[in-house]
């Protein structure tokens, strides 16, 4: 991907992220995510209805990569089934870990395809996916 275009997409999501701001609603599951290796601190809440991700919201203080990745991830996962979401999350993780992954499945998340080369930024990019993954696990345990 052209680096200017990549930067433009990331910056747009950093400056104007989607679904910022939490709601007071028990039908959501909330997860606070604190990045051990840096200082990002984001709350993510997610609502699943009939096996479909109906809404994801977030709030917090984080770097450009974490914030934008949260926004792009929300856009990508909204309306997907839990199973589809899991597949996307796994492929996203693989991409960040520089393993084989399905490019088609990730859509706009492909803007982070070079983050894996910067070890100190991997955790920033994985912040939203790790949080959403653990929310989906919490849902399964319910």
């Amino acid at each position, binding site marked *: 991907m052209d680096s200017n275009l990549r930067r433009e997409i*990331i910056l747009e999501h950093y400056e104007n992220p989607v679904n910022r701001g939490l709601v007071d609603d028990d039908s959501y599951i909330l997860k606070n995510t604190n990045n051990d290796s840096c*200082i990002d601190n984001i709350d993510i809440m997610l609502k699943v209805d009939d096996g479909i991700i109906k809404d994801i919201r977030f709030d917090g203080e984080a770097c*450009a990569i974490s914030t934008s990745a949260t926004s792009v991830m929300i856009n990508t996962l909204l309306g997907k089934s839990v199973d589809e979401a899991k597949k996307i999350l796994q492929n996203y993780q693989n991409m960040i870990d520089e393993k084989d992954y399905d490019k088609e499945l990730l859509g706009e998340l492909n803007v982070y395809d070079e983050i894996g080369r910067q070890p100190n*930024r991997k955790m920033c990019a994985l912040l939203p996916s790790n949080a959403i993954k653990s929310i989906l696990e919490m849902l399964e345990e319910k």
Partner: protein
Amino acid sequence: MNREDFPMLKEDIVYFDNGATTLKPKSVVHAMDKYYLEHTSNIHRGEYDASIITNQLYDGVRDIVRDFIHAKNSDEIVYTSGTTEGINMVVFGFMKKHLKKGDVVLTDRAEHASNVLPWLVLARKMGIVVKYVPLDDDYSLSVAKLEKEIDDKVKVISIAKVSNVVGDVRDTKRIGEICKSKNIYFVVDAAQAVSHVEVDVVDDNIDFLAFSAHKMAGPTGVGALYGKYELLCGMDPLKYGGGMNQEFSSDGDFEIKTPPLKFEAGTPAIAEVIGMGEAIKYVSKIGVDKIHEHEVSLKKYLVSELRKIPNIIMYNEKSDSGILAFNLEGVFAQDTAIFLNHFHIYVRAGNHCTKMLKEEMNIRNTCRISMYLYNNKSDVDRLIDALKQSENIFKVVI
């Protein structure tokens, strides 16, 4: 000054993260190498040549530390793994025994985690009360405000000599006098103070003082705890084992040694202790006053240059040390640090282990510049040049 002593500075870097750890001069590394390459041996009870050399060096560091912090007696110096261990020893080895439910420990919200969490654990375990002296408008700790908080219940004042984000130098002399007159234990975290400002435990009537070697040109994993001898006698060890006992037998009887050895169970970090001694010799030769003067004048220059950049927010321009916390307006601190790394300028971003400071400062994360003896005007100029280009920050960090 003395840049040639620090091999890392031959690289094209500006090292501004001295509050986290300082670079190490060759003499310190060589002293440690010498132990590993020429006289490796355990301390005490070895009757062979290498062991005798090691013993002399290792035990000799206690005298070096004693003189450095102006203690009366080398037996008041306990080797530790660093400030954190030192404060934990005081809280759980001494205070747990000598405080009772309802007793108040006075501290402040600019303290490092290692001078807060042990007290909070003690509060949970035995019901002591941790109170925080409100900071001044410039986030410094004033003696006047501290005095206002003192009542009969206050049994301990536990503060940093130099705070690690604000960088204000606390008047430990005056606070020590107050503690003495009111019979309050005075505990000092000197992690950011040693080798930056003079530390005098006797003159300041300090009961316990802890510091780490790695923040003053020494190795990681070692430090010292000072305690007045009679207090150390009343302090329990947190570790038991070899080297700290006098006698033990199968009927359950045992006798432990006197301070400082009773606190030093197990084989210690011998090379690191020797390195700590070398570091103290190194900074003492330059002179702590001279280092302080250098850092303060460099900070003044830094502040005056940063004022010329419109989108910089500084949080502690006035504090009398080489520490400056700042942010670029509208930019997350971590992004600023990543941006500066692009220019090989090393700063720290985060809350700097002072997670309560946000309650006073209203900001959770900052970039921290912390200077040391080898930083110079050209380091500052490079930082300023980089920050002047910060309109391109996202071209760099994304």
